[in-house]
C-alpha cells in the first residue's frame, strides 16, 4: 500500500515537472515573447528594453532553470498587466473557481448517480434509453451557449437568479449547472456501466441466493463495487471542470482564475497565463493522486496488496 502510494507519488512529481517544462516552452517557442509583450506599436528599443528587464536575453537554459527554481517555490514572477505578484493574483481568484467546481461536481453527482443506477436497474428498457438520451444531450450541448440560454431564460425573462457575478450565493447556480452538464454524461454512463457489471456479477447472484433484500443487494453489494471507478472519475472530472472553467467564467463574468487567464491572454500577460496553466495542471495531478488513494481505500484488493 505504502509502496503503491510512493510509486504513484513519484509519477505525479515527474508529470508535474514535465508540465512545468512544457509551460515554460509554451511561451518561449511560440514566438518572441518580448515582441508580444511590447505590443504592436513598440519600437526596437522598447523591445530591447523589455528583453533586458525580463531577462529574455539570457540563454534559454539559464532562463529555464531560473524560472523553474522560482516556480517550485511558488514564485511565478510579476504580472505585466496587473503590476502584482502572480501568486497573489491567483490566490485571490482561486476561491471562486474552486467553489464553482465543487458546486458543479455536487450538482453533477446528485443528477448522475441516481440516473446511472436507475438506468442500470432498468437496463434495456425505455427508462435506460431515456437516460442514455439525456446523457447524450448533455454531451452535445455547447457549454457557453447553454450558459447564454440559461441567462436569457432564468436571469432575464424569469429573473430568478443574477445573470452574472457571484456577489451573492445564487450567482453560482447557473454557472454550476452549466459546468455540471459537462460532467453528467460521463458520470452517468460510468455509474450505469459499473452498476450493470456489478449487478451481473457472480457475487450478486450469491447475495440473491442468500435471500438478501433487493435494497441490500442493490446498495450494499452492487453500488459499493460500482462506486469505486465512479470516485476516481469524479475526481478527474473536477480537474477537467476547473480546467474548463475559463469558458463558463467568461460567459458569466465570474472573477475566478479562468477569467483571470482569459484577461491575461487578451493582454499578452504571459507570466499569469503560464502560472494558471501550471496551477490547474498541478491541481489535476493532485486530484488524480487523491483518486488513486481513495480507490485503494475503497478496494480491498488494492489495500491489502
Amino acid at each position, binding site marked *: 500500500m505504502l509502496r503503491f502510494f*510512493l*510509486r504513484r507519488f513519484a509519477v505525479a512529481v515527474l508529470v508535474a515537472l514535465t508540465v512545468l517544462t512544457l509551460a515554460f516552452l509554451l511561451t518561449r517557442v511560440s514566438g518572441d515573447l518580448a515582441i508580444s509583450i511590447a505590443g504592436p506599436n513598440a519600437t526596437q528599443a522598447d523591445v530591447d528594453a523589455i528583453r533586458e528587464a525580463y531577462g529574455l536575453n539570457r540563454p534559454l537554459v539559464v532562463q529555464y532553470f531560473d524560472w523553474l527554481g522560482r516556480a517550485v517555490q511558488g514564485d511565478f514572477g510579476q504580472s505585466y498587466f496587473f503590476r502584482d505578484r502572480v501568486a497573489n493574483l491567483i490566490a485571490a481568484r482561486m476561491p471562486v473557481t474552486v467553489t464553482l467546481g465543487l458546486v458543479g461536481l455536487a450538482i453533477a453527482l446528485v443528477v448522475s448517480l441516481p440516473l446511472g443506477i436507475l438506468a442500470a436497474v432498468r437496463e434495456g428498457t425505455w427508462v435506460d434509453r431515456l437516460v442514455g438520451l439525456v446523457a447524450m444531450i448533455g454531451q452535445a450541448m455547447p457549454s457557453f451557449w447553454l450558459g447564454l440560454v440559461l441567462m436569457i431564460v432564468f436571469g432575464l425573462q424569469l429573473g430568478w437568479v443574477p445573470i452574472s457575478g457571484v456577489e451573492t450565493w445564487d450567482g453560482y447556480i447557473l454557472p454550476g449547472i452549466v459546468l455540471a452538464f459537462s460532467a453528467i454524461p460521463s458520470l452517468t454512463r460510468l455509474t450505469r456501466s459499473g452498476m450493470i457489471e456489478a449487478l451481473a456479477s457472480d457475487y450478486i447472484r450469491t447475495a440473491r441466493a442468500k435471500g438478501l433484500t433487493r435494497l441490500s443487494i442493490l446498495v450494499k453489494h452492487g453500488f459499493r463495487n460500482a462506486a469505486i471507478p465512479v470516485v476516481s472519475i469524479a475526481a478527474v472530472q473536477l480537474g477537467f471542470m476547473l480546467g474548463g472553467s475559463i469558458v463558463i467564467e467568461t460567459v458569466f463574468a465570474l472573477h475566478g482564475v479562468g477569467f483571470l487567464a482569459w484577461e491575461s491572454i487578451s493582454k499578452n500577460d504571459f507570466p499569469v497565463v503560464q502560472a494558471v496553466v501550471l496551477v490547474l495542471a498541478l491541481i489535476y495531478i493532485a486530484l488524480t493522486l487523491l483518486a488513486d488513494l481513495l480507490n485503494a481505500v475503497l478496494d480491498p484488493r488494492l489495500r491489502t496488496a
Partner: protein
Amino acid sequence: MSAPAIEVRGLRRVFRVRQGLFAPPREVVAVDDVSFSVPAGSVLGVVGESGCGKSTLARLILGLLEPSAGDVLVDGQRLGGMDRRARARLIQPVFQDPFASLNPKRRIRDIVAMPLVAQGDVSRAEVERRVAEALDRVGLSREQGTRFPAQLSGGQRQRVAIARALVLRPRIVVCDEPTSALDVSVQAQILNLLAELRRDLGLTYLFISHNLAVVEHIASEVAVMYLGRIVERSESERLFAAPRHPYTRALLASVLTPEPGLGVPDVGLGDTMPDPANIPPGCRFHPRCPVAITKCSTEAPRPTADAAGLVECHLA
C-alpha cells in the same frame, strides 16, 4: 524407439515480478531445469495442477517466451536463434480456448492459410490446395471454410485450430489443454481426430493437460510437473499402474472414475496450496506430502533415472 523428434535440455524460465518502484523485483522460477526427449511419432503427456508451469513450458517450446536457460531441439536442430519461419515449419501449436484462438475478423480458410501466407514463398494455388487438404483432414467442408469463427461451434473451431497447425506439415504439435474447454462428447471427437492424425502423418505431440484420464488415453509417456519441475516421468502404462512419486499417487487417487459405489477418495494432501512465487526449501512438495520425512524439508532430492523412467523423491 526411434531418434528423438524433440529434445528439451535444461529448460528454465525465471519471471521477474515487479513489486514497486523501490523494491527489488522478485524472481519467480516458473520452469526449473526441465529436460526430456520425445521419440518421433509418439506422445508425451505433461500433467500437473494449475500454476505448475506446464503452460509456461509450452510457450517456451513454441518460442512465445524466451528461455532463461536451456535449449529446445527438433530433429537435432536448435530452435533458439532459428529463423521464426523455419521454426514454424517444425513446430506448431493447438491452444485451449477455441474462442480466443481464432481471429474473429477473418474467414476460416484465411485463418488456416495464415501460416502458409506468412512463409511468403508459397504460390496462391498451392496455398489454396493445401488449405483445402487441411480442412478436409480435420473434417470441415469447403463451405465451412468461407464462414467466420463466430458461426462455428467450439468443437468445429478446435478443428480449425488443428487444421491451421497442420497446414505447414510440422514435425511437432504442442497441444496446450486442447480439449479442456469442450464438452465430453466433443472432447472425444477431438481426441480421436488427434490420434488419427498422429498415425496418418507421423506427428509427434507434446500434450499438456490437467485431465489424467485424457492423458492416459492419448500419451505414450507421461511427465508430472510440480512447481516448475518434472517430479516423475515414465511410460504411460507404468506410471498409471505403479506411480512412484507421492504427488503422482495423490493425483491418480483424485481421479474420479465413473465407477459407482467407490465414494470419494482421501487424497491425503493438506490444506497448503502450492505457490510458485514462494517455493518451499528442500523438496518443493514436502509441505503437502503425506509421507514426508525430516530430510525432505531440508534437502532437495536429485532426479534419479533408470529403465523405468525418472523420479525426484528421497523415498522412491
